[in-house]
C-alpha cells in the first residue's frame, strides 16, 4: 500500500524532491560564500591602502625615488630635459605598446614620471638608468624600458603602468587619488 502511494502522485513527489534538492544546493552554495569571501583583502588592508602623499621637493633632477603604495613599488623620476626630449622624439611606430609620452605625465609637469616599479612581464624590479634607452633594464628576462617607462624590447608585453595620482601643488602629489 505504501509503495503505491508514491506512484499515484508523481507530480507532488517530484516537486517535493526537487524543492528539497534545490534548497540543499542553495544552502551549500550560500554556506560556501563566506569561506571564499574571507580570501579578499581585509578591511584593515583596504584602509591601509589609502592614498599616500609624497613630497617631491627633495627629489633632484635626474633622480629616481622608490616608494610603496598598497604594498606595490612606485618609481618617482624627476626627468632631465634631455630624457624628456628622448622620450618625446621616439616615433610611436617604434613602440611595442604605442603611447605618447604626453599621455604618461601631467601637462606642465612633464619632468615628473610616476609609474609602477614592477616589470609587466613577471614582476621583477627593473634596474634604474640601465639599458640602451637610459630608462630601466629588467635583469630577470631582459626587458628594456625607455625614459617614459615604455617597453622597447624584451618579453614585457606592455609599458610600466601609471598609478592614479594628482598634484596638490608644485611640490606635492597624492598617489591613489585622481584630480
Amino acid at each position: 500500500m505504501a509503495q503505491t502511494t508514491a506512484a499515484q502522485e508523481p507530480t507532488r513527489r517530484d516537486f517535493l524532491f526537487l524543492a528539497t534538492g534545490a534548497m540543499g544546493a542553495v544552502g551549500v552554495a550560500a554556506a560556501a560564500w563566506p569561506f571564499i569571501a574571507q580570501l579578499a583583502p581585509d578591511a584593515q588592508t583596504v584602509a591601509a591602502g589609502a592614498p599616500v602623499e609624497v613630497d617631491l621637493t627633495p627629489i633632484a633632477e635626474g633622480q629616481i625615488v622608490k616608494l610603496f603604495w598598497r604594498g606595490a613599488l612606485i618609481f618617482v623620476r624627476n626627468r632631465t630635459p634631455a630624457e624628456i626630449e628622448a622620450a618625446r622624439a621616439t616615433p610611436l611606430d617604434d613602440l611595442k605598446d604605442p603611447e605618447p609620452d604626453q599621455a604618461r605625465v601631467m601637462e606642465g609637469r612633464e619632468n615628473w614620471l610616476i609609474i609602477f616599479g614592477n616589470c609587466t612581464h613577471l614582476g621583477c624590479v627593473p634596474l634604474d638608468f640601465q639599458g640602451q634607452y637610459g630608462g630601466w633594464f629588467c635583469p630577470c628576462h631582459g626587458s628594456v624600458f625607455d625614459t617614459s617607462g615604455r617597453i622597447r624590447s624584451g618579453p614585457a608585453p606592455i609599458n610600466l603602468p601609471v598609478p592614479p595620482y594628482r598634484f596638490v601643488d608644485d611640490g606635492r602629489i597624492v598617489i591613489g587619488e585622481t584630480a
Partner: protein
Amino acid sequence: MRDQDKGSRTMNKTLFIAGFFAASLAFSGGAANAAPGGVVPPRNDWSFAGPFGTFDRAQLQRGFLVFKTVCASCHGLEKVSFRNLAEEGGPEYTEAQVEAFAAEFLVDGGYDEFGDPVQRAATPADFWPSPFANYQQAAAANGGKAPPDLSVMAKARTYERGFPWWITDVFTQYNENGVDYLSAFLQGYVEPPEDFDPALGNWNLYYPGHIVAMPNVLFDGAVEYPRDAQERPIVPETVEQYAKDVTAFLMWTAEPHLEARKAMGFQVLVFLLVFAGLLYFTKKRIWARVGGETEGHAAG
C-alpha cells in the same frame, strides 16, 4: 499495530529531544562566570538585545562622546580604528567627522631620511591611540594599576546568572551580562559602608569585592550632550544616562558586526527551518516505500 508503532516512535522522539536538551543545557552551568562579592546588576532595556537588536546610532554617538571626554584619558581602545566610527552598524559618523577625530592625534610616522622617528597626524586607517605609551607607564601614572583597554570590555566582564536563569537565557537570548554589569559598575560608586577605609581604594557596589582602583569619573553634567532647537539637551545629562550610553558604545566596540550577525542569523534560521520541513516530508515519502518508518524496539 500501527498505533503501537506510532507510540514507540513518539516515545523515541521525546527521548531524543529530552536527551538533546539535557546534554546541551545541563553542562553549560560553568559558562556563567563567578563574580564573588558582587551585587547582581539590574537588567537594562538595550536596543541591541534580542534576535532583531540594532544599535541606536544617537546613543552610540553620545557614548563615544562620553568615552572621548572621560574614559579616553586613562583607557585605551586599541582594537578600534577611526574608520570604524564611520562604518555601517556603528555610530555611523560621516567620513569628514572621522577624519577630524583622527586629525586630533599624532601617531608614529616611521622614520625620516636620517633614521629619526617622526610623528604624523592620524588618519582614519589608524587605530585609536592609547593614552599611555606602554603598560609600565600606564601603571605608574595610575597608582600601580594600569587601566585596562576597553575594546572588548563589554565581553570581558559578566556576572553569575545562577540556576535556573542560565537555562532560560538560552531561550530568551539574554547575553547582555557584560553590559548590564558595566552600566551598573559605572553607577555603582554609592556611599560606602561606614567602616570602609578610603586608603584601600574606591568602593563600588557592583565590583566583585567592592574595592576598586578606578575612582568615580561620572558626575551629572560632566559631558555636554547635543542640544535640541530650544538649547535643551536631547537626553538628560545624568550619570545614569552617561553610563548607559558609554556602555552601549563599548558593546559596539566589542562586537562591531553585531547587527550583521543578528540579521544573518534570522535568515539562516528561517532557511534551516524551511529546509528541515521539506526534508521531513521527503523523508516520510521515501520511507513510505517500505511501509513507513519503523523505529525503536517496542514490540507489538
